[in-house]
C-alpha cells in the first residue's frame, strides 16, 4: 500500500478544517439574510412614496393649509374605516380654489364621468386583521403614532412596518403611547418627559383594559 500515490495535496487538510467553519458560517449567513430581508423596508414597503392617480399633497392640505384630518377622513371617529373622501368633498373647496389648476383636473373628470378616483392603498393590513380606527382615536391614540407626520409628506408613504409585534408593543403597554383625546389629531404632538406617568393616568381615565388588549380576538376573527 505504501507505494500507492497520495490522493490529496498536503494543503487539503487545512482546506478540510477551514471548510467545516465556512460551512457553518454559510448556514448562519443565509438565516441572517432571510431575517434581515423579511424585516426590510423594501419588503414591507416602508418609507416608499407611492404614486397616486392625483398628485395630492398632504403636506399642503394638512400642513400648509392646516386642514383637520377629519375633514376628508370623516368616519375615522365612528367607524373602523377612516373613509377615503368622495370626489364631492374635494369639489367643495376646489370650486373656490385652484379651479383650473391641471393638478385638479382628475377631480373634474371624475365628477363628470362619475368614475371614482382609484387611490392606491398605502397602509394595507392583511385581510385577517380587523383594525378599527374609531376605538383608537377615541381612546387617545394619535394619527401620527401609526401614520407618522403626514402633514410633512408631499406624497404619503408607510411610516411603520406594521408588524404584529409592533402592534403588540402598544397593545401590551399603551401608557407609552397614549395621549389626551383632544390631542389625537395634533400632528405636532410630542410625548412629554412624564409620558409614562401621564400615560398611566390616561389609561385609567379612558378605562382601557390592558389585559384584554392582547387577546387574539381584539384584532383577529
Amino acid at each position, binding site marked *: 500500500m505504501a507505494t500507492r500515490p497520495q*490522493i490529496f495535496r498536503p494543503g487539503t487538510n487545512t482546506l478540510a478544517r477551514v471548510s467545516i467553519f465556512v460551512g457553518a458560517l454559510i448556514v448562519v449567513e443565509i438565516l441572517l439574510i432571510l431575517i434581515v430581508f423579511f424585516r426590510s423596508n423594501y419588503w414591507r414597503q416602508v418609507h416608499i412614496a407611492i404614486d397616486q392617480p392625483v398628485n395630492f399633497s398632504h403636506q399642503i392640505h394638512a400642513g400648509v393649509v392646516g386642514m383637520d384630518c377629519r375633514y376628508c377622513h370623516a368616519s375615522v371617529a365612528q367607524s373602523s374605516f377612516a373613509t377615503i373622501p368622495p370626489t364631492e368633498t374635494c369639489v367643495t373647496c376646489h370650486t373656490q380654489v385652484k379651479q383650473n389648476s391641471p393638478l385638479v383636473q382628475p377631480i373634474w373628470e371624475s365628477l363628470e364621468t362619475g368614475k371614482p378616483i382609484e387611490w392606491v392603498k398605502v397602509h394595507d393590513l392583511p385581510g385577517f386583521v380587523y383594525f378599527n380606527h374609531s376605538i383608537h382615536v377615541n381612546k387617545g391614540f394619535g394619527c401620527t403614532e401609526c401614520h407618522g407626520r403626514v402633514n410633512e409628506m408631499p406624497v404619503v408613504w408607510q411610516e411603520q412596518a406594521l*408588524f*404584529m409585534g409592533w402592534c403588540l408593543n402598544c397593545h401590551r403597554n399603551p401608557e407609552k403611547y397614549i395621549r389626551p383625546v383632544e390631542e389625537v389629531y395634533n400632528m405636532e404632538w410630542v410625548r412629554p418627559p412624564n409620558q409614562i406617568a401621564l400615560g398611566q393616568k390616561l389609561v385609567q381615565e379612558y378605562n382601557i383594559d390592558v389585559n384584554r388588549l392582547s387577546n387574539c380576538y381584539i384584532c383577529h376573527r
Partner: protein
Amino acid sequence: MQRYEQIEPIEPIIGPGQTYATITERISSIPLTDLRQTPRGWLVGFAISFSFLMLFLISILWLFARGTGIWGLNIPVAWGFAIINFVWWIGIGHAGTLISAVLLLFQQSWRNSINRFAEAMTLFAVACAGLFPILHLGRPWLFYWLIPYPNTLGMWPQFRSPLAWDVFAISTYATVSLLFWLVGLIPDFAILRDRAAGKLQRQIFGLLALGWRSSSRHWYRYEMAYLILAALSTPLVVSVHSIVSLDFAVSQLPGWHVTIFPPYFVAGAVFSGFAMVLTLTIPIRKWYNLEDFITMKHLDNMAKVMLVTGSIVFYGYLMELFYGWYSASVFEQYMVLNRMIGPYAPFFWALILCNGVIPQLLWFKFFRQNIPFLFVFSIIVNIGMWLERFVIVVISLHREFLPSSWDMYTPTFWDWSLYIGSLGLFFTLLFLFIRFLPMINIFEMSMLQFSENEKARRREARRVQLAGDTPEPAQMA
C-alpha cells in the same frame, strides 16, 4: 479431591475459516465493485423501489395541490394514515440506535455485524417518519411555525402541545443517529479509500475518511467519541417514542388517554425495529452470502429480544382493555367494546394475533432458529405494529363521546399511495446504501475476529492445562 471445569462449545458469531483478510475482502468488495458489474438483482430491486419513490413524489405533489381532503379523513377521524405511518416509521427507527448504542454499552459484541446496517435502516426510517408530520398539516408550507424562532409576530409555539415536543424529539434523534452512523463509518471509509481502484473513488472515500490514518491516537479519539455518542443516544431511544406516545396520552380521548403509553410505545418500537432488521438482513445475508458474519446466533438473539418486547406490548394491550373496563367510565368501557366488536374489530383481533399470539412461538428454539419462519414472522410483526397504530388512531377517534358525531374512516387511493410511496423512499435509500457503503462494519468485524481467536486460544490452553494436571493415585508404602 477432584477439580474440573466444564467447557461447553459456544455458538460462533463468525463463521469458521474467516481471516482478517477474508473479512475485509468480502465486505469491502461489495461497494467497490465496478458500476458495470452491479448485480442484476440489485438493479431490479432498485428499479422497483425507485418507481415507488416516484409514486411518493406524485402523491405529495397532488397533496400540496389539493389539500388533505384527498385522503379519507373527516370529522371525527381527523388523523389517519399520515399519523399511523409516522408512528410506524419512528418505531422502526428504534432498532438501530438500540442495537448500536445500548448493546455497545452492554458490550454485546455480537452486535458488531448488524449495527451498521441497523443504524442505516434507522436513519432511513426516521427520514420517512420525519416527512409525515409535515405532509399531514393542512398548510404544510407553514410547518416552521412549530419551531421556536424570533419572529415579527411576537409569537412562540404553544409549548403545552405534545406536537411541539415532537419537533425537538425527532430532530434530536435524527441528528444524533446520523452522527453516530457517520463516526462509525470513518475507519471503514479509510479502508475503502485504501482499497479503491479508481482515483475518483479514492478521492471521495478519502474525503469521507477525513484523513484517517489508523494511528493509535486516531483510534483512541475514535473510541471516546463513539462511546460518548452511544451514551448520548441511549436515553434518546427511550425519549423519542415516549414523546411520540404523548401525542396520544396527553389528549382526553378514550383509547388515547392512557398512562402506560410511553413504556409500551418504546417496547413496541424496539419490537418493530428488530422485526424490520430481520426482514432486511435475512434476504441480504443470503444474496451477498454473509451467513458467516450474520450467523444463527444473531438471528436467535434478535428473536429473543423480540419475544421480550413483544410480550411487553401484549401486556400493554391487555392492560388497556383491563383499565377500560375497570375505569367504570361509560366512554372507556364503550371504547373497549367498540375495539372488540365494533365495525373495525377485525383489525383489533388481527393485531392481537400478530403482536400477541404469534410471538409466543419464539419461546421455542425451533422457531427462533428457523430462518424462513423468522422472515415471515418479522413481516407479520411489521404488519401487526402498523395495525396497532391503526387501532389506536382510527378506532379511538371514530366513535367517542357524542354518538351523533360518530363516523367511519375509509382510506382512499392517495392514503395508500403515500404509504407505499414512503416504503419506496425507504428501500431506495437502503439499496443505495448496501451498494455503495460497507453494510457491515469491517474493522469491528476484524476486531471481533481477533477477540474470537483469542477466546479460542484461551479455551484451547485451558483444556491442555486441565489435561496436564490430573492427580496421580497415591502409592502404598
